[in-house]
């Protein structure tokens, strides 16, 4: 066997988080189905699973990003994995996880759309066109993928902030993470969800959709690079 490397670490971290996802997705789907059956709100019946899963998936990824530092960074370094390889492995596992959640969500959405012909569980669900682009599958899925990745990195940022710099560093990391997540949400909503006092309303709808993707990809890349710089010299706690 050769030296522990990022591939091995990536596979192991994906397997660990994959087990959590096996719990997460069926629970969210069960809630979605339950709401479709029992909720009196008619508009719920019009939301596809792909849309419904977006927020819970983002929160799930945020939590995964936090846990992956506190529960496993020390453990892997203790077994001879460098911080660099651990970090690369983590990013790969996060991408894999986002891709898996997105793919399974698309399959479940397709399944529920098909099922509505047979069983009236999901009354009118049809994937919504994404930001008036006409794309019902590819662009929403890609947007979810990027959002999940960004939330994961926000979670990693919070955790590494506390792990490396303690209380104040952690508090600063939380503020930065909230800011980061807000940027993502604002870009997708294409407006400020809550108008800020004194700040003129900004209409992002003039920004072309490809440009939105580009901005988000740049933000994610920059965040990953910054987190790598912080992680690569982090002292490991003997605990």
């Amino acid at each position, binding site marked *: 066997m050769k*030296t*522990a*490397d990022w591939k091995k670490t990536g596979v192991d971290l994906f397997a660990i988080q994959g087990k959590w996802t096996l719990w997460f997705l069926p629970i969210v789907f069960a809630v979605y189905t339950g709401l479709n059956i029992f909720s009196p709100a008619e508009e719920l019946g019009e939301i596809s699973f792909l849309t419904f899963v977006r927020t819970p998936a983002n929160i799930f990824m945020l939590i995964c990003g936090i846990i992956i530092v506190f529960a496993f960074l020390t453990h*892997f*370094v203790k077994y*001879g994995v*460098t911080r660099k390889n651990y970090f690369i492995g983590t990013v790969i596992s996060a991408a894999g996880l986002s891709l898996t959640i997105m793919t399974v969500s698309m399959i479940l959405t397709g399944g529920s759309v098909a099922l509505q012909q047979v069983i009236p569980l999901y009354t009118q669900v049809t994937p919504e066109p994404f930001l008036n682009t006409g794309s019902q599958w590819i662009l929403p899925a890609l947007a979810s993928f990027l959002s999940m990745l960004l939330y994961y990195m926000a979670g990693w940022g919070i955790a590494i902030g506390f792990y490396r710099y303690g209380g104040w560093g952690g508090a600063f990391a939380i503020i930065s993470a909230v800011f980061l997540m807000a940027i993502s949400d604002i870009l997708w909503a294409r407006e400020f969800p809550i108008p800020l006092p004194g700040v003129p309303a900004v209409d992002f709808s003039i920004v072309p959709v490809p440009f939105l993707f580009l901005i988000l990809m740049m933000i994610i890349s920059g965040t990953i690079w910054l987190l790598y710089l912080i992680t690569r010299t982090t002292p490991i706690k*003997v605990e």
Partner: protein
Amino acid sequence: MNIKADRISVTYKNTTALHDLSFTLEPGKTYGLVGRNGAGKTTLLSLLASFRKTDSGRLEIDGENPFENARLMSEIAFIYETDYSDEHEPVSSYFDFTARYRKNFDRAYAEKLAKKFSLGLDQPVHKLSKGMQSALNVIIGLAGRTEITIFDEAYSGMDAPAREIFYREIINEKEKHPRTMILSTHLVSEMDYLFDEVIIIHKGQLLLQKTADELNEQGLTVTGNIEDVDRFTEGLSVLGSETLGGTKRAKIYGSLSQDHLEQAAASGLEIGTLPLQDLFISLTEEEHGHEDS
């Protein structure tokens, strides 16, 4: 793998954990790292294991800086008391993980050791007693067979019979699979026979690095009549002494010349070896070198 530290220092905020520490460790030897609480032992071992960087000075293992060095890190195991309270995986999955990341891991040996320590492979780790968790740690260290294996008080939770098994295995491993082992401990009197060389650090500084033979020659006791002992120890480095009635036992540190040995024989003084534990206590007492305690 040769380990060379040249004036290394580590500071935590306003506290100096290590200050200008220099030493060399040769491959294949078992080192005893001894020091009082807060002496800097764990900080030093953290540097060797690439858990942290030095603030100043130069640390080299096999001629390279160990920090973030994939080749070196895969060959260095740092075993310490680990908090397993949230770990629900069974013992066997720890062996699986070690096998995946330690290329020389001997699973058959690990399972044999588990049997010796009465450690069930299917038991969830968080349900193990503290002693059994320590046994798991030392099994991973012993069976991992990394070129540098560091045990930092990893055995303090184990009971005396389990520690005895561990000591015997250290000796067996030294014979069958020679490698550098560093044993940091408070249980000096129990473990001194395992050490080829001893390093004592105090307040972040190197106090002593000697082979076991050198310590046997240089850490001595002189017992006899009070006046004779006082006369004999004049000009020698006296670490401390005890008196009982007219008899005095002085602890001295340093080699004795042939003249001294002859003088001791003529005065009827008894020369003995100072146990490492006593030497350690004497050297690290806040005020040592004074008479009577």
